[in-house]
């Protein structure tokens, strides 16, 4: 999500993290993964050469949704699940702005599931950062739509029964044009993925594995802990065969059913590996890749799963307005009112 008009003048004063930091005290629990996401975004902003007044952060309800208060930009802390709808209003009204949606697994995928999928399929120009901690934090620890089956929480003392969503699979199934995953333990990776998401024209979806150290501590340790990353994180690089492992000894290939599977490179040979292509218009392969992130712990793709070009919703809205004005001239209220059968009484 970007717009050329938001780039600062070449001779403008260079901005710093401070210019994007509000005067409000950050109130997340000590040790929360949200801090590192906030830092990543605040550090990235000056690098993007954009103006704070042209940024609008829209959030719903949940711990992560306090995020806009900490950004020195325009912001709306809206209501539970509705951020993509409110952000759509901002984006359709003002294509000149950069619109960011901050949401969580409960906010985006449970109460706000409908707005989430429709913002993606419409391709509204916005960057959606989904803080996935697989738990309800603000309401103190109930299972979420991404929690693993059998999770024991206050609301599921005998284990949760609900089968979880895979957020990236859901996004791809919702016709998203940009889908990526990152995690809160790697600030550089986050910044790079956020930068790509911001550059994308259209709805850009980023799932962030985010640790809730109070209610779901270590949920992603199995894949994001430093000593696990080599064998558990599958770094996606466009145009390259998908490989991972301490010695790059593993890879991903598509089997006869079109499913992505983990293979030993020594056994199948490098030529058999899937070469990652972010720009494949058909979503099937990206979907297959997204399925690799099986719960509770399996090798998990990180980075950009899908990035394709499709006209943004608001640009098409604008095109229709322009075309109508060219065809019929600007609207004239009196002519409109007097259209159709009229008569005069004298």
């Amino acid at each position: 999500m970007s717009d050329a008009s938001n780039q600062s003048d070449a001779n403008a004063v260079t901005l710093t993290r401070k210019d994007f930091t509000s005067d409000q005290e950050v109130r997340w629990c000590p040790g929360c993964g949200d801090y590192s996401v906030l830092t990543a975004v605040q550090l990235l902003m000056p690098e993007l050469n954009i103006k704070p007044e042209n940024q609008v952060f829209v959030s719903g309800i949940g711990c992560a949704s306090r995020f806009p208060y900490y950004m020195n930009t325009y912001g709306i802390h809206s209501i539970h699940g509705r951020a993509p709808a409110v952000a759509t209003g901002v984006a359709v009204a003002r294509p000149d702005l950069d619109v960011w949606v901050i949401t969580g697994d409960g906010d985006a995928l449970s109460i706000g599931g409908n707005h989430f999928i429709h913002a993606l399929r419409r391709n509204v120009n916005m960057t959606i950062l989904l803080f996935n901690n697989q738990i309800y934090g603000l309401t103190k620890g109930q299972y979420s739509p991404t929690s693993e089956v059998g999770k024991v929480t206050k609301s599921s003392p005998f284990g949760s029964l609900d089968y979880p969503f895979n957020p990236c699979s859901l996004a791809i199934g919702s016709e998203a044009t940009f889908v990526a995953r990152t995690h809160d333990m790697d600030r550089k990776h986050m910044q790079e993925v956020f930068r790509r998401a911001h550059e994308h024209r259209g709805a850009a979806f980023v799932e962030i594995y985010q640790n809730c150290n109070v209610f779901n501590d270590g949920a992603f340790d199995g894949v994001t802990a430093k000593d696990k990353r080599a064998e558990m994180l599958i770094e996606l690089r466009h145009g390259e065969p998908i490989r991972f492992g301490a010695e790059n000894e593993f890879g991903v290939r598509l089997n006869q059913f079109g499913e992505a599977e983990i293979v030993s490179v020594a056994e199948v040979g490098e030529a058999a590996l899937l070469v990652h292509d972010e720009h494949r218009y058909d979503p099937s392969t990206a979907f297959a890749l997204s399925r690799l992130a099986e719960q509770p712990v399996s090798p998990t793709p990180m980075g950009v799963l899908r990035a394709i070009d499709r006209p943004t919703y608001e640009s098409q809205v604008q095109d229709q307005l322009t075309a109508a004005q060219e065809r019929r001239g600007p609207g004239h209220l009196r002519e409109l009112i007097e259209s159709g059968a009229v008569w005069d009484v004298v």
Partner: protein
Amino acid sequence: MTEISETNGSPKSLDRVVIRFAGDSGDGMQLVGDRFTDVSAAFGNDLATLPNYPAEIRAPAGTIAGVSSFQVHIADYDIVTPGDIPNLLVAMNPAALKANIADLAPGSAIIANIDAFEPRNLDKAGYEANPLEDGSLDAFRVYPVPMTSLTLEAAKDTGAKPRDAQRSKNFFALGLISWMYTRPVEPVYKWIAERFGKSQIVHDANLCAFKAGYHFGETAELFEHAYEVQPAKLPPGRYRNITGNAATAYGLIAAGQQAKLPLLYASYPITPASDILHELSKHKNFGIRTVQAEDEISAIGIAIGGAFAGHLGVTATSGPGVDLKAEALGLAVSMELPLILIDVQRGGPSTGLPTKTEQADLMLAMYGRHGEAPLPIVSARTPSECFDATFEGARIAIKYRTPVIVLTDGYLANGSEPWLFPDVDALEDISIPFTTEPNHLNPDGSVEFWPYVRDEVTLARPWAIPGTPGLMHRIGGIEKEDGTGNVNYEPANHELMTRLRAEKIARIAADIAPVEVDDPDGNARLLVVGWGSTHGAIQAGARRVRARGHEVATAQLMHVNPFPLNLGEILSRYDRVLVPELNLGQLSRLLRAEYLVDAKSINKVQGLPFLSAEIEAKMMEMLDV
């Protein structure tokens, strides 16, 4: 229907007539009603209409449930309702007759499509014997006309297959009624050419059917003579016929123009509000952005986002949609942004009566949100006044930075009347400047922007939109500190903010038109207070009571919250107060609570407007005569 004059051979003059077209939902009765209405409007009659159709697009053919009707009242003087009793019923089948016969008075005329009165249809309608033959209609003047077969005969050279050709029988009916009431035919020819120009066969079939109906009236010796209703002596000016929903759409366009704001309209399809979306979607050359949202909540969310970004954010819906939008309305109350929500009321609760009218959302509009969340409510009293009510709603929303609910209803939305054009050049400028400069001076001499610093008179907060350097701010639904707008949970601050929000709405009372009382001689002891679409029936009821030599005063509210400042004083002037409503007593409860007045109710919840006779009878009862 007063018969004024009669000359041999020439049409008989009437001062008014009420015609009801009734048939199967697939028979095209709404279309025929619309055509007759437009022709009569252009001819210069005053008129009012009442479309009445089932929620099902195609209910089982031939059944009572599938009957669709369109009533139109035309007159040579100013009228205020679609009429209580049809003078003429056009019944395209037995079910249409059965569903409508109870509304006729002895002496009313019935034109029945005798071709449709065959055993299967009679059975479906629940008739054991053919009512056209068993004498059960002796109180009426019945004209059996073989419309289907005459239509087929007329269309036989057009190339239309019989199955298709018989569908033109509604135009036969229109032709016949056009002859009966001496309507000009050219506008119908023109309309048929425009509408069906692309298909020669359909065009020809409809045209032939129309002409056949017209000629049938002229030549068949069934009817004694035709009638005429002269143009009405309405105030001078240029007119068109308009429905409430079209007037609402135009009101929004006018508001955007006079507010110098782009219009962002988001809604989810719902009966009977969808036509507003349809109308606005046509006028993109006005720069109107329309979004068909994924649901009702999204629609208001999009409007709120647009408002934050500096557009005139609007959403429209009906009752079920208002339920769903409640939480977001509260957000708009808390964010103090301009927003317009139009509620085209229909029968409830739940899905209720989707295509029928009701006024039962007043309490929902007043109180249908958690917490103390007051907002202004404006209602429209006639179809054309939907233009003014919407414009007024926008004026208040923008000036006071508040969501406003505009209440119309199914009767206004689909009903139509002649509309004397407003002087668009004289429309009020309702624009306000966006805030572009910091508004708070710190002790150290620095300046900053506080989003909740208020205007001393209106208590409105500044509207600073994204893209404005130096005024970045974050707001939402959490309670905000007075002034800074920062998140704040202090007890005293919450009470202060709650009272400020309430006071802001209360102050609007001083900025709206006072209630006008219609009390011709000033001696009435009974005041009838209504709101919204009951206006016509109350006026007509009062005319009847006055014609009988009694005095009654009426007042019809446009602003329902806050009430106009003079309302209390007006109520206190009268011994008795009657409140007619299409609900079980919602305005009456508000009046009783606000003014301690012993307001009596007359209520109706049948999905239909009041008859003027019903209002008249209650007035007479209250007058003890």
